[in-house]
């Protein structure tokens, strides 16, 4: 059993609106799984089903080989996108309350809280009320509360919103560390650069259907277009460009480069290797820049959503 969470053809209707249509995902143990999709695609509904907030109309969800049941609440830590804390409650009291709701004993929760508060250097907030904290500070508390009970499965919905770059980085490192310690993470976001940075696997949901999933690298391989970014320097630029255009398909390029050279995106066909292209280019001009264009998560997202 290598998957921690398996959702099998999960469907959910709200009245006449189909929020999820036979969606299946498998989240491997110890991975960071990106759950992507445009607004209103059904991500939140799926996450709520995993959290047993909403019940699916059909389909099953398994956690660690068992059908999801109420006791699993303590195995899951959920940071929803719509999140907040009781404004007039003190930080410590509130964290203890939420931890106890997750099934921790009071003393255990206290110990763990102390560890986390020390780690994030927020120990002196214990007796402050949430309304006295800034939004970013409250988010930190919220993060601690989510991970405090050491859940097997962590679900983060837009975890970095509201954080400045420094704190976002801090939280990112914490997430990676939790993963290294054995936790499995489902990560939902619209910020593709963090998907790029963190995710091993992704699934893309669009209009209630899953339209793409797999290892991020596999998907990238699938989506690559055999295009190379090329930066050349030559005294006779026009001639060189024309010569290249005769043999290859050339597109305008927009990458950043220090010199004021010829910038091109060159697409090769399946029978040509990258070495062939490089040799050809080297014979015509001086090559300053030669990189294969790897589709970004952003490109894949936009392309897949548009095609569906």
């Amino acid at each position, binding site marked *: 059993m290598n998957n921690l969470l398996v959702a099998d053809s999960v469907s959910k209707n*709200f*009245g006449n609106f189909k929020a999820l249509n036979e969606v299946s995902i498998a989240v491997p143990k110890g991975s960071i799984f990106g759950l992507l999709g445009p607004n209103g695609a059904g991500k939140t509904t799926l996450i*709520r089903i995993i*959290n*047993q*907030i909403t019940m699916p109309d059909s389909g099953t969800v398994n956690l660690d080989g068992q059908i999801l049941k*109420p*006791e699993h*609440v*303590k195995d*899951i830590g*959920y*940071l*929803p996108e*719509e*999140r*907040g*804390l*009781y*404004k*007039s*409650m003190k930080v410590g009291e509130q964290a203890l*309350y*939420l931890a*106890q*709701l*997750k*099934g921790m004993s009071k003393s255990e929760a206290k110990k763990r809280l102390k560890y986390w508060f020390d780690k994030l250097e927020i120990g002196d907030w214990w007796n402050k009320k949430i309304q006295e904290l800034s939004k970013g500070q409250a988010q930190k508390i*919220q993060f601690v*509360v989510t991970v405090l009970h050491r859940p097997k499965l962590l679900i983060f919905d837009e975890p970095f919103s509201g954080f400045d770059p420094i704190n976002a980085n801090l939280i990112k490192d914490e997430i990676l560390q939790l993963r290294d310690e054995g936790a499995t993470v489902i990560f939902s976001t619209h910020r593709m650069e963090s998907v790029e940075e963190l995710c091993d696997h992704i699934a893309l949901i669009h209009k209630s259907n899953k339209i793409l999933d797999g290892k991020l690298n596999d998907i990238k391989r699938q989506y690559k277009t055999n295009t190379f970014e090329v930066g050349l320097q030559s005294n006779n630029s026009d001639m060189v460009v024309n010569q290249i255009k005769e043999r290859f398909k050339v597109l305008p390029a927009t990458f950043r480069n220090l010199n004021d050279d010829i910038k091109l995106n060159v697409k090769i066909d399946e029978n040509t290797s990258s070495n062939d292209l490089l040799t050809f280019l080297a014979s015509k001009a001086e090559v300053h820049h030669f990189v294969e264009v790897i589709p970004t998560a952003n490109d894949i997202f936009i392309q897949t959503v548009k095609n569906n």
Partner: protein
Amino acid sequence: MNHLPLIIKREYLTKVKNKSFIIMTFLSPLIMIALIAVVAYLSQLNNDKLRTISILDETGFLDGVFKNTDNTTYSDLSNMGLNLKDAITLVKKKEDYGLLHIAKVNELEAVSKNIKFYSEDSPSLTIISSLERKIEKRLREMKLQNDGVTLEQIEASKTYVNIAQESFEGEKTSKIDNVIKLAFGGIAGYLLFMFIIIYGNMIMRSVIEEKTSRIIEVIISSVKPVQLMLGKIVGTSLAGVTQFAIWVILGGVLMVVVSAIFGIDLSQASTPQQELMNQAMQAEGAQAMVENVITAIGNLPMLNLVFAFIFFFIGGYLLYSSLYAAIGAAVDNETDTQQFMLPILMPLILAVYVGVFTVIEDPHGTVSTVFSFIPFTSPVVMLMRIPFGVPLWQQGISLLLLIGTFLFAVWFAAKIYRVGILMYGKKPTYKEIFKWLKY
């Protein structure tokens, strides 16, 4: 996992530790007592004012009728040989309260039609009626004496009747009994009504707070919405009971302290109406009155009353508060609650009206009986009826209906709650809420 105790504890502590809750708890009885004390003090001031009423009796029939009391002095101008005009001038100059003029007539019969009261301002109702009663008594006696009846005979003929009532089963009641029963039933019903409105609203606000602070999704990823809702209702109710208890105790203590310090007898914060009633009671015999009240209270089905109060109070309160919780879940902010409040308040207000107007008239009539079975009105109406003696089987059926409806209401509220707490943004319509039931 059962988190109910934990949730109840949090809800209770948050409510009780809340600053405005604490302030309200301790300030309300102070304000109430201060208000009562001021009213009592003012009316006492009014009572203590000495009045002088001048009498110009040209007939001589009413000699000796008017005797000075603590705050009213009668000054008889009859023997000073003044005419009405001079008398009025004199009274004005003396700044007396007023002048009672009995015009000269020959026939005893005609006296009653020729009595007038002159005063600067319109005189108080109490004073006029007290004067009237004194004159009536004297004239009646004189008429009887003219017919040859002696004063002793008149005195001996005075009879007071108080019809003793007894049901076929041998249960004794009286007129005062009914008043006492009404008072008990009325207080119980009104208490429930107030409790529902005050603490139902509190529950609603606390649900809305969870929505606006966006904590709700975090919470319900750990606990079932029904648990959260029930925890909220119970926790808030306990806070309410605490507040009520403090109010009663503090109010009682303050009442004693204030009346001791200022020497104001708060229980006799008398209004003219009360005075009239007191006088009427005196006519009936104050002694008998007190005895009747005591027996009337003794006659009440106390055990039944206490248990019925507990069960109907809890049942009715929980029924309404689960609906309040559902409203809180359906909307985003308090201003949006208006359109949903009306359907809740209507039966509640109806219950109080039925209780006040119908139960008094006929506690076992069709209207009262029917409304004491309808679950939304039964807690208030039944509580008002019970002091008049309601068969246990009726109470039982009514209670069962109430519990059944309560369970249904919790199911209904939980459905709305479960969906509603995750809905943000727009105010839902009734149609949408109906759809939520099927989610």
